[in-house]
């Protein structure tokens, strides 16, 4: 009978090994995707029980849907019910009487106006009319007949963020052609909200991706989160980099929303100075160090750099306080700030021979 304990010990050790390996092999990573904001939202949460991760991710998705309902520039919540922003835009067009707005929208408009000023007017969400004229305020858009007269009239009317007066949770516009489109702001804003929410819920590790804009919390196990940067003309990543805790990354490209007309590409990023889509740039990526509004900056800061002429791009980045940026111009030449170049791992074999990569240091 003295054999029994030994047999049992052998079995027990083997069982412990089985359980241990199962635990080690099953990574505590929860991953979910959903279509919100008219785009793909992708959330990874690491190191939380699956039920909890699922519940938190669902809450984040629901918050995004709420934001979408409030901030969408052209999609009503239902046929007779415009979004909060839609109603405000209608009021701007009608008169210059102040209308009540939510504290949230008031703070967004104030913040967006500050960024407008900081970017010398290149980030100008007040040009919703122009964006609509080019057909981009639509789920399904295609080549349009370019209405040059209307475009010129809108550029001349020059609707700007500083025409909006926000006071005591009311707003009015001194320019009836102001139509706010937060397409270059809302996703970043949502990233900040989601990151704040998850941190408050004591989530230590998560990665949130809204339509390509990404913010990181903590890391992926014992390694930092890694993100790929999409090549603007290939179905592959051009480079990868580690996204450390609190960092955010965003790209503006001419490949996400565009149409072709007479062999020319017309993208959704419009230069407010001439009212035409930018045609000299394929993509601009910015990397934002941890700060309160890292998400917003990852969304907003790439736009002025995208719109600025190639030679003005480093200056524009410096003006916005952006150290980490990469530009891919229309000939697929790459201009990358040395600060960002240190962090990139190139995947595209064509980049590794370095013939079309230029390093710049900020002025």
């Amino acid at each position, binding site marked *: 009978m003295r054999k029994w304990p030994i047999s049992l010990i052998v079995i027990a050790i083997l069982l412990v090994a089985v359980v241990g*390996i199962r635990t080690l092999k099953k990574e505590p990573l929860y991953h979910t995707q959903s279509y919100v904001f008219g*785009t793909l939202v992708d959330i990874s949460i690491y190191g939380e029980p699956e039920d909890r991760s699922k519940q938190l991710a669902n809450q984040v998705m629901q918050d995004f849907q709420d934001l979408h309902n409030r901030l969408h520039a052209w999609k009503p919540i239902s046929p007779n019910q415009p979004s909060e922003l839609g109603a405000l835009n209608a009021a701007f067009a009608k008169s210059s009487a102040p209308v009540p707005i939510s504290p949230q929208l008031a703070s967004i408009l104030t913040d967006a106006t500050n960024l407008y000023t900081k970017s010398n007017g290149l980030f100008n969400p007040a040009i919703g009319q122009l964006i609509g004229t080019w057909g981009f305020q639509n789920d399904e858009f295609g080549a349009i007949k370019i209405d040059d007269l209307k475009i010129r009239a809108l550029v001349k009317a020059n609707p700007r963020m500083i025409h909006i007066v926000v006071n005591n949770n009311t707003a009015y516009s001194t320019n009836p052609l102001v139509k706010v489109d937060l397409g270059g702001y809302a996703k970043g804003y949502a990233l900040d909200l989601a990151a704040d929410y998850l941190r408050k819920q004591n989530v230590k590790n998560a990665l949130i991706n809204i339509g390509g804009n990404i913010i990181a919390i903590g890391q992926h196990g014992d390694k930092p989160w890694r993100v790929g*940067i999409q090549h603007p003309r290939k179905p592959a990543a051009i480079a990868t980099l580690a996204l450390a805790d609190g960092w955010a990354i965003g790209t503006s490209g001419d490949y996400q929303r565009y149409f072709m007309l007479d062999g020319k590409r017309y993208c959704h990023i419009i230069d407010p100075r001439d009212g035409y889509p930018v045609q000299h740039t394929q993509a601009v990526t910015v990397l934002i160090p941890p700060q309160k509004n890292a998400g917003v900056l990852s969304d907003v800061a790439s736009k002025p750099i995208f719109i600025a002429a190639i030679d003005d791009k480093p200056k524009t980045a410096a003006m916005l306080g952006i150290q980490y940026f990469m530009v891919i111009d229309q000939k697929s030449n790459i201009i990358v700030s040395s600060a960002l170049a240190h962090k990139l791992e190139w995947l595209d074999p064509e980049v590794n021979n370095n013939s079309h990569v230029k390093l710049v240091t900020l002025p």
Partner: protein
Amino acid sequence: MLSSSRSHKPAFSHLLAGDWLTIILSAIIIAYLFQTLWSHEQAAKVQIRIGDKVHAAYDLNQQRDIIVHGAIGDAMIRIGQGKVRFAKSPCHNQYCVHQGWLNHNGQVAICLPNQVSLELIGAQKPYDSLNY
């Protein structure tokens, strides 16, 4: 085993029920461990998502067309010996079709209007998420 070595009698004949139990259980556990630890890396697959659900994953080493029902209609996904692409899509702009073939781990093609996405998955993911 233990009983046989002590009694100097032919092996096996003196094994008790407990010994057999130990041997069988050990064999099962060892077989499990072997399978878990020595399993081969999975061949590259394509994961198809529709809306927020994983629809299916298919081995890339085949020639096959798959029809999936997206939010606005049927899309045709073509698998062709190690690569995959959107072959047909009901969406307006056809960005997904224009993306062409995907053949590397981590590559993604997304059709936003139809809410269908393709992602190439292998043993190792080159990155956690894609910035685009």
